[in-house]
């Protein structure tokens, strides 16, 4: 995939009129990524139930093209749905590394944002962003499925701002220069 994502921006900017090609390509790439966010089937705690409710009939995540994939290799989106404990931190990091680029992370619920009701617990990581970079935070304990859908829509808006010229090959968080997940802890 290197040709499209890595070489195209340099080539297109050198050629007169190449910007049009670039922006058109951007448009379609972003469309593809926006409407095909496949999250990992992965729930941690209470929020996972609300996540399941979001997949289910009333809220129907499939409307947005969000269908869960069981294997991290085929997933684009990691939904941290619940409390990240210290014992679970290592597996989460591993799952994140198993996912292919571009990958996105949504921290769902207060626990994943900041520790939530367990802010002073001895075995809870105070926020998923201490382990891996997070794109969208959703508040609530647990957030309603509507809030989760809102979070995904916000992520779609964020993806729409990804541009090839700015290095869209990599994940959005890394483009912003967030800290290296491997050395983060």
């Amino acid at each position: 995939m290197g040709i499209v994502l890595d070489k195209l921006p340099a080539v297109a900017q050198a050629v007169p009129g190449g910007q049009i090609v670039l922006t058109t390509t951007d448009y379609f790439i972003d469309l593809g990524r926006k409407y095909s966010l496949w999250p990992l089937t992965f729930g941690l705690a209470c929020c996972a139930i609300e996540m399941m409710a979001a997949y289910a009939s009333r809220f129907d995540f499939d409307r947005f093209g969000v269908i869960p994939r069981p294997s991290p290799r085929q997933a684009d989106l990691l939904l941290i749905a619940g409390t990240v404990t210290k014992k679970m931190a290592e597996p989460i990091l591993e799952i994140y590394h198993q996912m292919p680029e571009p990958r996105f992370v949504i921290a769902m619920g207060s626990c994943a944002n900041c520790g939530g009701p367990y802010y002073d617990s001895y075995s809870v990581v105070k926020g998923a962003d201490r382990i891996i970079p997070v794109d969208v935070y959703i508040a609530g304990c647990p957030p309603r499925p509507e809030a989760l859908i809102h979070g995904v829509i916000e992520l779609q808006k964020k993806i729409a701002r990804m541009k090839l010229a700015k290095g869209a090959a990599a994940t959005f968080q890394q483009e912003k220069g967030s800290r290296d997940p491997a050395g983060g802890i």
Partner: protein
Amino acid sequence: MPLTKEDVIARLLARLPKAEAASVPVRDYPTVRLGAPEDLPAAARLLKGELGFEYLEMVTAVDWLGPVRQEGFVSSRNPHPFLAQAPAPPVTPVAGPGISYHPILDMLWSFGNLRENLKVFLRLAVPRDRPEVPTLTGLFPAADWQEREAFDLLGIRFTGHPNLIKILTPDFLTGHPLRKDYVHQKDPYDE
């Protein structure tokens, strides 16, 4: 003739000379305080074999060292998290009748008789520095994980347990969190 609470206590006390009825029972339930760790297997055999208490409901312990210490928590117990300078709340619990702070771990077992609909609690005080109790895994498979949990969180050694290893806390966590003098060691995930 149906078994009654009094029968159970009487049978237990008759078999175990060092045991006594607890001065402060678990409310509404018959509670017997064992005299020594050796009493436990005998009591359990009596309960299971003769009195039909086949259901081990609970294995736990209370650390009677005193009120919980702030060092056990990751952050301070500040009730005003947005005001850094706010004073910490005064913690002045009162030791009441029958309850006093002293360095023991008070073990508690709960057995159920599903047919007679009875429940009995056994208590045993073990010293905090050498908390060793015989295991019940041979008699009650249900004791397996519950004893591992008590070991993990309270540091009680169950002698004879086939697999006494950590069960809940992560491997790098040192200490036993539910002890009152637990001090949280900062790990890479804190700050």
